[in-house]
């Protein structure tokens, strides 16, 4: 039976870059345990000889001609940005964290 603890949920939320507070952890952790218990029913359903399917309709690599086609202007690409400067995305500091 799979178990997922509150601490594990906190760790996963951290990996997924979601800042869950204590109340959210209390709320979501038991729900995730129930879902996980349910989906665990597929263990053992397919044997080792069954190939995995990642895509429903078989496809081989799809290429296009290597030519320049119209695309968004820098102005369009930046139009939804929370902050921009000099034609670039403006972001908070990316250095200085412990990790």
């Amino acid at each position, binding site marked *: 039976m799979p178990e*997922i603890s509150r601490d*594990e*949920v906190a760790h*996963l*939320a*951290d*990996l*997924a*870059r*979601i*800042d*869950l*507070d204590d109340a*959210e952890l209390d*709320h*979501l952790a038991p*729900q*995730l345990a*129930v*879902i*996980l218990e*349910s*989906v*665990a*029913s*597929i*263990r053992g*359903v*397919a044997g080792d000889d*069954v*190939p*995995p*399917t*990642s*895509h*429903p*309709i078989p*496809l081989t690599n*799809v290429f*296009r001609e290597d030519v320049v086609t119209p695309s*968004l202007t820098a102005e*369009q*690409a930046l*139009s*939804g*940005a*929370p*902050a921009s400067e000099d034609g670039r*995305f403006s*972001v*908070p*500091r*990316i*250095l*200085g*964290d412990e990790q």
Partner: protein
Amino acid sequence: MSAVDWTRRTAADLADALASGEVTSVELTQAHLDRIAAVDGDATAGVHAFLHVDAEGALATARESDERRAAGNPLHPLDGVPIAVKDVVVTEGMPTTAGSKILEGWVPPYDATVVRRIKAAGLPILGKTNMDEFAMGSSTEHSAYGPTRNPWDQTRIPGGSGGGSAAAVAAYEAPLAIGTDTGGSIRQPGAVTGTVGVKPTYGAVSRYGLIALANSLDQAGPVTRTVLDAALLQELIGGHDPLDSTSVDQELPSLVDAARQGASGDLSGVRIGVVTEMSGEGWQPGVMARFQESVDLLVKAGAEVVEVSCPTFVHALATYYLILPAECSSNLAKFDAMRYGLRVVPEGNPSAEDVMKATRDAGFGDEVKRRIILGTYALSSGYYDAYYGQAQKVRTLISRDFEAAFDKVDVLVSPTAPTTAFELGEKLDDPLAMYLNDLATIPANLAGVPGISVPAGLADEDGLPVGFQVLAPALADDRCYRVGAALEALLAAEWGGPLLDKAPDLDKLDHREGDR
């Protein structure tokens, strides 16, 4: 108010009326905008099918359409027929939120291919329809902007995730709408609102410009009141798109021809399989009764009906709820507060990562968080083989079940959803109960095959709509339309008209001024 209520007509009728000069696109578009103003309301009251209404833009397109008609140069038979678009499909210059706070106020700089084709054919876009956040849900209650209400009973859910599109056509706010179906989000809302919804073959309609939930499962398709209208719309939006590398590069047989052929009511020589695994415990008796009557009608129409077992389908739900969270946890990583959408900056001197975490906590709702965390778990080392890897293998077995079934029959049928529309709030905080709504629709997404839901009547227990699902092999979407149209015609003959004629009249709300 004109004597004719244009909002009650099918899209095919409206196309004819435009062609004959009986009505203008401006009149049609205004009639639907008036209907929206009268019944749609907002988060607190009314149907609330729309998150954004673009009256000005729709009327401008309608005027251009009328000019083309007057000059004898319509772009398409549906030129001038208004349409609504689910808010997960990007529209240049028109807000697109996918039902999430994290995209509140975002105006995309480009059009989805589906939207580009709609615009190229001259259809006025009335607005964007409500949905569960990022299409995660079966009730539209997970919208960050408040739920949509079922036009049959406004205390009940309209299905999801595309409850807005289904409710919009059911409430005569639009003759046509675009939906997307990842695990049933077109078909299940169709079932519970008494409308028609089609999930085309995976890749038959471009995914370019759909805000992806799960790439290997997502599919855009038509939401309408009749099978013929759905065929007209799929033919308009479908076909190969070089911008979507998973787009199918093959012509489908004519869907409109198939719908017209089906409407004759003759199904001689068609082999139909009833899926054994889609019945029994948990299936509402009133749903099963209407389903069985529909099967009996198909037999009378000449179809040969047999029972077919697809034993792996019982694992479809678990498979789906591993594959989908895995794909969505990866897809939604792009909402990082840097390039578009919300940015929440915590106090102090936060790093980019702090900002990202605070933004994603504030911007995502509970269901989105649940699925992202579940997907992160399923993809993490030590669990990958046991969960995601195993789910991919079971997915193969489900496709094999379909292949074996389609060796014996032309189409498979089942009820679209196990129950009729439930009460708003009933399953909101019980994710597993919510997931069970998609029991019958999920296998088609896993295998990439097409499916249609058509109204099958009202359940005896509650008088609410029941949906009948037809599934066909990949690229044989025409079979869904043929059998769907046949059932629609046979049932309409029994009822003396379409099922929606039995829906209650909606209260007219006070006209609300606002920026909606």
